[in-house]
Every structure is written in structure tokens, then in C-alpha cells.
């Protein structure tokens, strides 16, 4: 199976030959990968060199933490690669979806449904781990789909409200 791993725009062709052999560019490497204790913590031996790192899924990418560094890796097989190269960029609808950046408690929602807001205006005050965070509007617009109120707990990435941009800004 052939893959392309992308990190920061750099491409690494990787071919998985069998469970213990990998072709990396032109080199055939002997590998052994083990999840330590069944966790997303991996010990990798490659031609005798020993590495250990965390590998976490993140949407359609992988986050690798290795020797104190963090890498975002996109792994594509050949079919996905062809698909992604034909995709065109579709611009978004221009809405701003305010998602909770962290789990926490909504302290205040100083805006109302349908209310016009300025750029930088506070939309939600969220408390997490005893710190209050002011979440602000990235642009002038109108609040819609308000789904939280003061006193509620929210999960990370939970949709809290939307800011539709001002019409002339679209």
C-alpha cells in the first residue's frame, strides 16, 4: 500500500510493504511499531533506531508528538491524493460559528438573538478551570442561532452561536 504523508507542505512517500518492512523514498526499512500498553503512545524501531511518540487523530489529520515537538501529518493513499488534487476551493458562507474553545461554564451572554454586534464585541464569557475567557466577534454582524445561556455548561467545540456578517461585508 502506497501513501503520501504531508507535513508543512513537505511530502514523504511511504510504502507499507508488509508488517515489518516499509519503503521510504528509495530505502527499504525494517520497522516495528507497538502501541505501549494499548495506548495511542507508540514505540517505533526503524532499522534499530528507537523513537517514542503520541499519535492522535485530529479530523482528517494526525497529530504526532515526538521528542518534545509537535507535527501535524496528513496521510493520503493514492486514491485520496488524486481526489484532493482535483478539488477546487469553495469559499465558505461567511458565517462565524462560535464554538466553545474548551469545556466550561457560560458566565454571561451579553448579546441577544438578532442583535447587531461590532467587531471585537464580547459574545460569550466562558469560565474554565477558574479563568474567565471573553469570546469576541471577529467582525461586525448579527447574532443568530444563539444556543447557550448563562449558567449552562458547554463541551469543547460545542456550537454556541453564529454571527452573520453585515450584508455589505459579504
Amino acid at each position, binding site marked *: *500500500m502506497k*501513501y503520501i*504523508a504531508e*507535513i*508543512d507542505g*513537505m511530502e*514523504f512517500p*511511504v510504502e*507499507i510493504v508488509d*508488517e515489518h518492512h*516499509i519503503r*521510504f523514498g528509495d530505502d527499504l526499512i525494517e*520497522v516495528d*511499531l*507497538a*502501541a*505501549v*500498553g*494499548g*495506548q*495511542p*503512545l*507508540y514505540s*517505533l524501531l*526503524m532499522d534499530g533506531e528507537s*523513537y*517514542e*511518540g*503520541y*499519535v*492522535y*487523530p*485530529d479530523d482528517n489529520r*494526525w497529530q*504526532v*508528538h*515526538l*521528542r*518534545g*515537538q*509537535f*507535527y501535524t*501529518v496528513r*496521510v493520503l493513499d493514492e486514491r485520496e491524493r488524486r481526489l484532493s488534487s482535483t478539488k477546487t476551493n469553495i469559499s465558505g458562507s461567511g458565517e462565524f460559528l462560535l464554538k466553545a*474553545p*474548551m*469545556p*466550561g*461554564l457560560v*458566565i*454571561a451572554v451579553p448579546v441577544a438573538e438578532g442583535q447587531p454586534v461590532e467587531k471585537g464585541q464580547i459574545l460569550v*464569557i466562558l*469560565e*474554565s*478551570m*477558574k*479563568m*474567565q475567557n*471573553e469570546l469576541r466577534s471577529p467582525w461586525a454582524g448579527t447574532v443568530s442561532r444563539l444556543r447557550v445561556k448563562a449558567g449552562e455548561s458547554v463541551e*469543547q467545540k460545542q456550537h454556541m452561536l453564529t454571527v452573520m456578517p453585515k450584508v455589505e461585508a459579504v
Partner: protein
Amino acid sequence: MFKKILIANRGEIAVRIQRACRELGIETVAVFSEADRQSMHVRFADEAYLIGPSPARDSYLRGEKIIDVARKCGADAVHPGYGFLAERADFSAACADAGLVFIGPKPSSIASMGDKAMARATVAHAGIPVVPGTEGQGSLRDDELLSLAPGIGFPLLIKATSGGGGKGMRDVNSLEEMPELLASARREAESSFGDGNVYLEKLIPDARHIEFQILADQHGNIIHLGERECSIQRRHQKLIEEAPSPLIGTDESFRRRMGEVAVQAARSVDYTNTGTIEFLVDKQRNFYFLEMNTRLQVEHPVTEMVTGLDVVIEQIRIANGWKLSHRQEDIRWRGAAIECRINTEDPYNNFTPSTGRITMTQLPTGPGIRIDTGVYIGFEISPYYDPLISKLIVWGETRAQAIARVRRALEEYRIVGVRTNIPFHQTMMATYPFIAGEYDTRFVEEQFAMIDAAENRELFLDVAALMATMVAHHQMEHRAHIYPRTGKRSPWQWAGHPQEPHR
């Protein structure tokens, strides 16, 4: 000596205090919230009592309930740890009223130091330099603060009168932005401390945060155990502390001068037990009293490593009425110690708090390493409490050896299931200004970036690419097959269910 001590706290500090009690042959009583039933401090204790639901205001902040437990179980003293009730004069007084010894200073000392404005007025009166601000002017209204601000000059800080740990604190660069910042500081102070009062303080440029550990017995003896440098901070939360301070270094007369002032500040409020005098030090080595923490501090192990003393045991002995067992001239400092606070914050995502269950952890050990923690495999990180889960404290004969050991220990440290700031510490330990000891309190926020700092370091792009590809490959294979229930696992021993989020 006390027979039984109730520890009115949780997490690593509750465990730390239990250790001191055990070594002194004192029984320990834990109190816990619903979230903490399985916590180490509950399981390590001789007795443990549920005091309420998970939010701190319903459990660890309920002083009357805790005192009630202490009475019923026959404890003769209460140790408050840090945070929660540690700096509440009313709690200290209520303990005394209930016939319990509060392991800390007298209510009057907490009151005069705990109200930061009053503290600054008190020490200023004793001739100790303080940072210019609205100290000693009591609780002022917004319009009063706004009219005083130009006299202090910008930039300045809004600080919570009952504050600590950066809560209720805001930087102000101009009069225009001040009203909104005042409102948010007051709101945060109100929710964190139940007191929305704030004061203003001049911001000292290039300031270093250097603090002195104080021990004071009930017989008028006060000594200091030297300094800790705590300038590596983010949003006024300390992240790394070390002793000796790289700024003071081998300048013994500078250390002696600051130490004497610290002792004098403690004496000005008739202080007993352990405390910390915090100073800001500018480039010209002028130092200003910042505040006094009338409690045990998170970073006390740094001092323990270089002095060989056990600060918590000293605290208990002092509270029991004993004289200090050391004179100032007996205190010697050896080597260098560094503490890294391990928080559940993702340094790659603007230090966003991370919650989740710890599914695996492996602690560093070996020469010079100490870990103070309250977490274990299966521990659930909840949003109710602060994000500190562990402290890595390292000692070395020299600062260079200590840094090398910190690096080695951080590389060994594994925590799975929740994101931590370990990569932040690893990056910091490779950053030139830190290695050179040339940093100030703004360094993390203004000159440090995970990405820039990483540029000087060896990259393992190829290894990362390979690891991710092999994991992705397995996930794809796994999806393509339906595994029989009794099916053998792959020799690669894959982790969990691939669709399961590990965040």
C-alpha cells in the same frame, strides 16, 4: 504534637501535606467533593469525608462544613494547603473559635496581608519600597480609579484586592480601554474570590519576579530560606520556578539585603508560620514589595531541594508552638533546583484547558528528580479545579546540570488521555534566554513562541511521517475488516478502537 490533622484541600498539595503528617506520625483526615471520590488524597488518608458536590464553592470552599467535619472526627488542627480557604482570615478565625489550630498565620496577619492594598500600606509604613499604585486607599469605585490612573501612568495593572494566580488581573495601556477592563477584572474577581474589589499598580518594565520563603515561629524568630525566581509566567500564572535566582546568582550581599527586607516585611504584620514575600526587581536591581502570600506555596519544593529542609514539617512544628529548629546562619543553599508546573493545557492551542481521563502515565525518576502529583491512571481531569496536575522538581549540582536533568525527565514523562504543557517546558529548556538566565516576567507572552523556539531544534519529520502513516494504515485495514470477537490481535498491538477519539 498534634494527633490528627484535617487537610482542607485536594490534589497534589493534599498528598504533599499527608506525606509530612505520616513522617511525623500524625493521622490525616481528607475532605473531598463528589468529583474526587477516587483521588489519591482520599485513598492515602486515614479518614476521608465527603463535603459536597464538585464545584469548589459547594465543597472545598465550605469552611463551616469542613470545620464541622474536623470537630466530629476529633482533629486537633487544620492545614489549608494553598488556594481555597488558605488565605481567608474568617476561616482561620473560625478554626480558632472551634478549638482547632489553623496551620498558618493568625487571622490578623492574613487580613493585613491578604488585602493587598492594606499589605502594601503596612510594609510601606515599615519603610519597605512598594510599586506605585493605589495601595492603602481602600476599595475605590471605577470613577475614582479612572481619575487616579493617569497619575500612576500607563501601562498599569488592575489587580484583584483578594486576588492571586492572575485572576481578576488586567493590563491597561490607555485610559480609553480601562472601563471595560475594570468591569471584566471585577467580574472575574467576584466569581473567583467573592470580592470584586480591585486596585491599580504601575507596571515595572523588564521586571523579574523574585520571592523569599519565610519561616516564623510564635516566639518572635523569623528567618528566610532564600529566594525563588518565578519570572517564567503566562497571564500572571507561574510556570517555572527556580532557586537560586539567575539574577542574584552568587551576589550574596544582594541576597542578604533582600532577605533582610523580606524578614522585616513579615515582622511588620507580626507574622507566624510559613509565608512568601514577593518582590519585583528591575534592571537596575531595585526591588519593590509586591505582595505576601500567607500560606504554603505551590513552588515550595524548589526551596526544599536547595536547603534540604521540609517546609511542611516546619509549618506543622511552628503551629504546634515549637521554636524554629534553625537559625538564619544555619541555612545553607546547595546546588540549583528547577520546578516545572505540569498543567492540562495545550501549548499548541494557545494553552487551552484540556479535559479527559488519564489512560496512561509514566513518571520520570532517577537522580535528582522529584514528582509531586495527585493524579493516576483513570483520573478524570474535570473543569472544576485548576489545571495543575503535577510538579516536576529537579535538583542539580549546578544550574546547567539541573537544566539537563529537567530535559531528560521531561522526555521520560508520559501522560496519555489529556493534553499537557510538557512540550512547552521542553521548548523552554532549549530556549537561549532561559538557558542564559536572562528573562523577565513578560518573556513567555512577548518573546516566546512554540514554533520560533522550535526552529533551533532537531526535527524528526521523517519519523513523524512514518509513525502517522503506519497508524493511519492500520486504521484503514481495521475499517476494511470485520473482526471476529475471538480474533487475534495484530502483532502491532494497536491502541484502542481507532474511531475512538483520544482527545
